[in-house]
């Protein structure tokens, strides 16, 4: 039942692919110079850039992951939304204008503006590559999960298809087509989320007394009116109030992915709307609390240090445009996260959750509202992955071609050769992304994105803040911040309980019971930068 494919969805999916590939081929001439290829010649309108930010940022981790997490875990999934959005405030208030002022093609430009150091450029480029690759994992996993119900193909075929399409987009016309893809995707994502929430509110609840019965289980059988009451359409507040006051059946999964309500087990809406679905904070161990604080720290600090977000500031013509586009982005992203709360709760109360893969809750909710909904939501979700992956690949190719090959290795390249180098780098990174998408199949994409945020927060943010705002910072200090942040966060992730489960061991065997490393890695990175800067004062001080 869960994995039946729809012809309309297949057609829409093919239309999306044809459109983006066609667009990329049409725009290829506008990306023949390095400025055109890497930053769309800095000529993007702030409004378009703002919506492109929305498209760039609201990835599979947000559209599929947050909705899925709320559908499975309740309120705790919503906490991710708050963290993801709050990072934008750090970005707007502290970094948007300085980064725009000092950089040209990559975030490394801004970091290195006061130092002109090869070592620093190399460190920042490596950091960009690692963060982008970590952020690519959830996108590819989300793509694979999406392709299964959409086209009826296995996970690996889905990952392979997305990887190929996105590599074509980036390798042909770089940031120019990426901007248009992200802008269209950002707009579509907001519109379809609004429509989805409207449909959820219109449908309301089907209730047996105070018990909210999964909508999908009563569609064909029992008539509404005899045993069940229909709440009718609800306003947003009333929807939350009824959910809070009601009881919701727990779901169980049979073979073949089919989900049915477990009529023996109910949970109060009030319980679902408080913390406990994912994080054991109230009654849990101290390490669970520290892990949660670490996650929230990583989320608020990580956004401001994501290279693929920072490079979008170079696509506009002025500092004021950079600020305005951030504000458009914040409004759009805030709206989306409020909507995702209703989408998640709607999926939960409809019984449209694939318990084996929480990422599928949103498309399945759409499926319960009609085949057209499902087709459109799947196409938009696919474009969500497409937009973010293309942004990540362009950031990575800039790190390779502009930072490492041109500035660090000093390779003499003509403008055209630099663009070709960027395109080849995009193809290689696309292949790496495909491989990782296969390895991490089945993990929740928001959870995986949390790691990318933690690495960005640990490696890039302390370096960026000190380089921009502390006069005594030296290039050695910045390098120390990047490498210590990278190293500590990567080691902590590799020995985390979640990874131990992946290795086939019990989570309790992990040496450090921390799944999110920011709380340890960030202070170490900051400390390393300060100590090394003070020790090397006078050598390369800015």
């Amino acid at each position, binding site marked *: 039942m869960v994995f039946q494919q729809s012809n309309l969805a297949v057609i829409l999916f093919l239309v999306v692919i044809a459109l983006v590939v066609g667009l990329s081929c049409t725009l290829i001439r506008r990306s023949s110079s390095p400025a055109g290829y890497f930053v769309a010649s800095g000529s993007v309108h702030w409004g378009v850039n703002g919506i492109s930010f929305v498209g760039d940022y609201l990835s599979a981790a947000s559209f599929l992951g947050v909705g899925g997490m709320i559908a499975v875990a309740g*309120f705790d999934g*919503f*906490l991710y*939304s*708050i963290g993801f*959005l*709050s990072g*934008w*405030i*750090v970005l*707007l*208030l*502290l970094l948007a*204008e*300085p980064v725009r*002022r000092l950089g040209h093609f990559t975030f490394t430009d801004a970091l290195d503006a006061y130092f002109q150091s090869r070592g620093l450029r190399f460190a920042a480029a490596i950091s960009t590559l690692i963060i982008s690759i970590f952020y690519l994992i959830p996108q590819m996993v989300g793509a694979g999960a999406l392709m299964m119900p959409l086209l009826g193909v296995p996970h690996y075929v889905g990952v392979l298809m997305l990887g190929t399409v996105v590599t074509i987009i980036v390798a042909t016309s770089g940031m120019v087509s990426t901007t248009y893809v992200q802008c269209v995707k950002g707009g579509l994502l907001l519109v379809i989320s609004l429509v989805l929430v409207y449909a959820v509110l219109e449908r309301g609840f089907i209730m047996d007394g105070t018990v909210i019965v999964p909508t999908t289980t009563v569609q064909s059988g029992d008539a509404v009116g005899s045993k069940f009451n229909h709440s009718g359409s609800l306003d947003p*507040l009333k929807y*939350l*109030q009824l959910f*809070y*006051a009601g009881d919701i059946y727990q779901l169980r999964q049979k073979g073949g992915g089919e989900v049915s309500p477990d009529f023996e087990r109910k949970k109060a809406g*009030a319980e679902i*709307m*408080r*913390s406990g679905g994912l*994080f054991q*904070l*109230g009654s849990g161990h101290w390490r669970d*609390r520290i892990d*949660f*604080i670490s996650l*929230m720290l990583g989320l*608020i600090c990580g956004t401001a240090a994501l290279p693929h977000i920072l490079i979008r500031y170079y696509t506009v013509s002025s500092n*004021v445009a950079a*600020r*305005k586009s*951030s*504000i458009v982005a*914040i*409004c759009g992203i*805030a709206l989306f*996260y*409020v909507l995702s*709360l209703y989408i998640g709760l709607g999926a939960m109360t409809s019984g449209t959750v694939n318990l084996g893969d929480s990422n599928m809750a949103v498309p399945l909710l759409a499926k319960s509202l009609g085949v057209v909904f499902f087709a459109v939501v799947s196409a938009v979700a696919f474009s969500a992955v497409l937009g973010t992956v293309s942004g990540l690949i362009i950031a990575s190719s800039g790190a390779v071609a502009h930072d490492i090959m041109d500035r660090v290795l000093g390779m003499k390249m003509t403008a055209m050769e630099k663009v070709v180098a960027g395109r080849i780098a995009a193809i290689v990174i696309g292949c790496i992304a495909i491989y990782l998408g296969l390895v991490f199949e089945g993990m929740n994409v928001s959870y995986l994105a949390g790691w990318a945020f933690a690495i960005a927060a640990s490696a890039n943010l302390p370096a960026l803040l000190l380089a921009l*705002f502390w006069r005594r910072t030296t290039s050695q200090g910045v390098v120390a911040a990047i490498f210590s942040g990278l190293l500590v966060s990567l080691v902590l992730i590799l020995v985390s309980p979640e990874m131990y489960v992946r290795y086939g061991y019990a989570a309790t065997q992990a040496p450090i019971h921390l799944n999110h490393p920011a709380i340890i890695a960030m202070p170490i990175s900051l400390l390393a930068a300060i100590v090394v800067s003070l020790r090397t004062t006078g050598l390369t001080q800015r």
Partner: protein
Amino acid sequence: MKQYASEKVDQLYRAKLRLGLKLLTAFATLYFMFVFLQVFKEEWLAMPVAGVNLGLILGLLLIFISVIVALIFHLCSCRLERTFSEQLQRVAVEKD
């Protein structure tokens, strides 16, 4: 005149940075208060308020506040930019 303009641009940059830092301090305080309430006083957030729980209301409020902070920053930055631009123009006219 060029040097004066450059100094003014730097002043403007620093003024916006100071404003950003103030707003960020206020926002980060609210954010971490919310996080710490989740961790240490979760039962407070479970209290029913207006038919839902306090945690949900505070979460939605934090999202709303982030939009407001962004708008305040933009409006104040615009005002600063206008003031600095007027000062520059005045000096340019006096020089002429």
